[in-house]
């Protein structure tokens, strides 16, 4: 009998008991699976250069993608604004997936509604669903703003959001003054970062319409981008406050995605006030911390608001230096002393630890801005990026990444793989092994297959807790990155050297 009341075994141990092992063995006779020899043979073949070439010759199939679809990003942009309810126009299953995905990463409730379109709407259009949906969601959830985006379905049948919202207002189902920004976010264009950009642009253009004043308000706008590290949101706020700036963070997801447990569920959190967001049109300038998640938004701000935009990527020491110096120049304020100390600590940590990572070969994948930030940090630590893979890449990204790598002696071995997926990465790791891999939770399959130590950085991270609460930007972020990478490698070293009298010669106490 498998279970003992004092030591209840769950799936981790239960199925290794002899009775279950026997069950698995017995079940095989009915399965019709290939023989163990055949499996072994094909498994070995998938590790070869020949397989890699076939794999890279793929034209139509995507296997294990490293990108999601547009509305996910639209939701992330929207929830950082005060009292905002995301409303996804289309088939309802999509919203269930977005909410689940975000919730599993942040371990926080994520509220969003759908217009629940079905076959009828496919034939007759989704107007009725939109009107009823706005009425119901307004009545139940009393939002201050409803942020509408679309799914594939609404896009394919060609629903006209602008006209639909006009109809809804005419029908009086929502108040006249309720802001309802909307963005077309088809999943067959771009990825989740495209959706972030579209929704951010729509929210800003909706809220700021008619709010342009003669003079600026002296503030600086900050746009974090598709930012899933709550520690980074806090880091930006700290910088704003340390500089004693008047700053507006567009959008501020800190309280929504890291809400305290005070015994009460709140659907809405402070976020960026709609008033501040409306006044963002009158700011001195807008600073974005990601490039590839904000192209349309930046273009809009420059052209329509006539406002200057600046992009900084405050990763690693140099990236953070540039950001702080840029901010100082922009505002005419000196860089606060505390950053000199924080910088010194980061540099101290980096010099202390550099020997453990110098010359280590790395593979990295993720969203383009994340990967650029990681590369900046790796190169200044003497880490050598080898495989750099971005599924939702652009030509601009690929050029920028190649230029960065080419300019460093540590970037000479790197190849940038744009538009490739994690099955491509698997071939790269087998044929040209590296010392470690940086990626999100899906990389654990690559770790298992290729035995490459994994450092979890990115989105989503489902299988480790609390990493998203830390920062990856600024000087403290540099220490966190170093901590994860160096200590991850030391954990691996301990695993390699832990068998008594066989491998444990280097099982050292002092590292």
């Amino acid at each position: 009998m498998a279970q003992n009341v004092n030591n209840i075994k769950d799936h981790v141990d239960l199925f290794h008991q002899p009775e279950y092992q026997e069950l698995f063995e017995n079940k095989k006779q009915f399965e019709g699976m290939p023989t163990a020899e055949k499996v072994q043979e094909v498994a070995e073949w998938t590790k070869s250069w020949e397989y890699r070439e076939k794999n890279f010759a793929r034209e139509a199939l995507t296997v294990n993608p490293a990108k999601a679809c547009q509305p996910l990003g639209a939701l992330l942009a929207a929830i950082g604004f005060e009292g905002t309810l995301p409303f996804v126009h289309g088939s309802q299953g999509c919203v269930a997936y977005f909410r689940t995905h975000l919730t599993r990463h942040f371990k926080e409730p994520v509220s969003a509604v759908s217009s629940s379109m079905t076959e009828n709407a496919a034939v007759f259009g989704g107007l009725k669903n939109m009107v009823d949906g706005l009425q119901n969601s307004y009545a139940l959830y009393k939002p201050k703003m409803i942020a509408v985006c679309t799914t594939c379905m609404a896009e394919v049948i060609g629903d006209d959001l602008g006209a639909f919202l006009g109809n809804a207002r005419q029908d009086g189902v929502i108040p006249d003054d309720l802001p309802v920004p909307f963005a077309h976010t088809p999943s067959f264009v771009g990825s989740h970062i495209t959706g972030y950009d579209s929704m951010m642009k729509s929210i800003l253009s909706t809220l700021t319409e008619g709010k342009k004043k003669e003079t600026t308000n002296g503030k600086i706008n900050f746009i974090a981008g598709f930012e899933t590290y709550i520690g980074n949101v806090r880091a930006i706020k700290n910088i704003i406050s340390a500089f004693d700036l008047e700053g507006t963070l567009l959008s501020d997801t800190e309280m929504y995605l890291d809400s305290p447990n005070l015994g009460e569920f709140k659907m809405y959190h402070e976020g960026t006030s709609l008033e501040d967001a409306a006044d963002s049109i009158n700011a001195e300038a807008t600073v974005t911390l990601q490039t590839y998640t904000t192209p349309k938004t930046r273009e809009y701000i420059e052209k329509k608001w006539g406002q200057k935009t600046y992009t900084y990527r405050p990763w690693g020491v140099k990236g953070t230096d540039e950001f702080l110096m840029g901010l100082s120049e922009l505002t005419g304020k000196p860089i606060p002393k505390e950053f000199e100390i924080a910088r010194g600590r980061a540099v101290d940590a980096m010099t202390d630890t550099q020997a453990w990572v110098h010359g280590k070969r790395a593979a990295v994948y993720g969203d383009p801005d994340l990967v650029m930030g990681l590369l900046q940090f790796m190169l200044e630590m003497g880490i050598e990026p080898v495989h750099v893979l971005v599924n939702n890449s652009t030509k601009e990204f690929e050029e920028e990444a190649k230029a960065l790598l080419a300019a460093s002696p540590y970037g000479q071995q790197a190849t940038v793989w744009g538009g490739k997926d994690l099955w491509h990465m698997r071939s790269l790791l087998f044929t040209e092994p590296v010392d470690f891999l940086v990626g999100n939770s899906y990389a654990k399959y690559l770790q298992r297959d290729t035995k490459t130590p994994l450092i979890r950085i990115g989105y989503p991270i489902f299988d480790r807790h609390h990493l998203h609460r830390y920062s990856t930007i600024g000087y403290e972020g540099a220490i966190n990155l170093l901590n994860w990478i160096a200590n991850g490698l030391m954990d691996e070293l301990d695993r390699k050297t832990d068998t008594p009298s066989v491998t444990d010669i280097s099982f050292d106490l002092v590292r």
Partner: protein
Amino acid sequence: MATVEDNKKLIADVLSTYPEKAAKKRAKHLGVYEEGEADCGVKSNKQSLPGVMTARGCAYAGSKGVVWGPIKDMVHISHGPVGCGYYSWSGRRNYYIGTTGVDSFGTMQFTSDFQERDIVFGGDKKLAKIIDEIEELFPLNGGVSVQSECPVGLIGDDIESVARTKSKETGKSVVPVRCEGFRGVSQSLGHHIANDMIRDWVFPTADKENAEKGFEGTPYDVAIIGDYNIGGDAWSSRILLEEIGLRVVAQWSGDGTLTEMKATPNVKLNLIHCYRSMNYISRHMEEKYGIPWLEYNFFGPSKIAASLREIASRFDEKIQAKAEEVIEKYRKQSEEIIAKYRPRLEGKTVMMMVGGLRPRHVVPAFKDLGMEIIGTGYEFAHGDDYKRTTGYVEDATLIYDDVTGYEFEEFVKELKPDLVAAGIKEKYVFQKMALPFRQMHSWDYSGPYHGYDGFAIFARDMDLALNSPTWGLIGTPWNK
């Protein structure tokens, strides 16, 4: 305990916030069970209201995410844009034994990643090419299924034709499944469509193959239907069936293979756990092959024993005697579990909201631990599910069909259960209210919960959820 009248009033109060038309519609889905009634008195399987927070998914989720996805030796193509496959990737913990990427593909995500040009020009050619590429890179795949996403149905692609051609070329099953997310009102239609495709695209070739190959049957051959092996549930069930002397020749679809599926028309009895998702194919096998089916419940020792006896009653005395032996064998284990955990859980109240079978099937497992269900409801049940629920619930239990986020929160605030048991989207809402919570779709990364071995884990998990000292930390002491 609230009375029937209390709960009826509660429903009326909660509905008062809705616009009139919406309140009228939702009223039909909310009810109070009254003892002796033939069903739970609620309407079900209707379209969700637009603009409310429903927990429901779509037909694609029902087909790819539930029925087809866990067939381990097949490559399931999420045909359409990248998102649907990405979000349903490895979320349900359908355990399997196999070498992923070589002979098994359960935790992989294959997609045609539709771009704008595919919408404009159609995706059939791309699909054909994808199947060729799969054959080249994953030669040990047992077959392919095409799980179509919304745009595929809307642009009028002919995936059936591609499937026929490619099946001829590869000599393997290529199954087109029209499970576009806009079809139907929830996952439920996706289950049905998925079942129909097994009927139309798998069984016809199986009949031929079975006739040619011959199948050496025994009088004790059964199939497990509608167990997705979440956290290993199907295994902790299968072990009991084998222990009572039955031969399980197929397991659907958790840890299942296409070969097992094709062998199923040879069995003597189909044993169905998730009635909602796979009753269709069970009924079909009954009509076409004369195979009877039986719904069973392997949650908690009371129901496990009753189910084992009922299953055994369909066979000879040898099996019946063995069933008694097995029940006896595990009696001590279950008694020890109950002796340890019941005192910690006695009298605690629970509100549930899950998918296909659990809103009723886990009630007796809670009761075995002395816990009481005060509210339950399904995401996507049909009328027959609510009929089947009547034997499980007590008088005055609150029943909510396709409950909205708003309703669920209000009901919980009023009835103050000690534990809420629903899904990941609900989990943190209730934990913020300082309420212990267990995920009933995926067992919170735990499991199995089925069978005697699973019950031990179920009991342990309810205890760790309810009796964690962390709940006592909520509420700042200086504000109390």
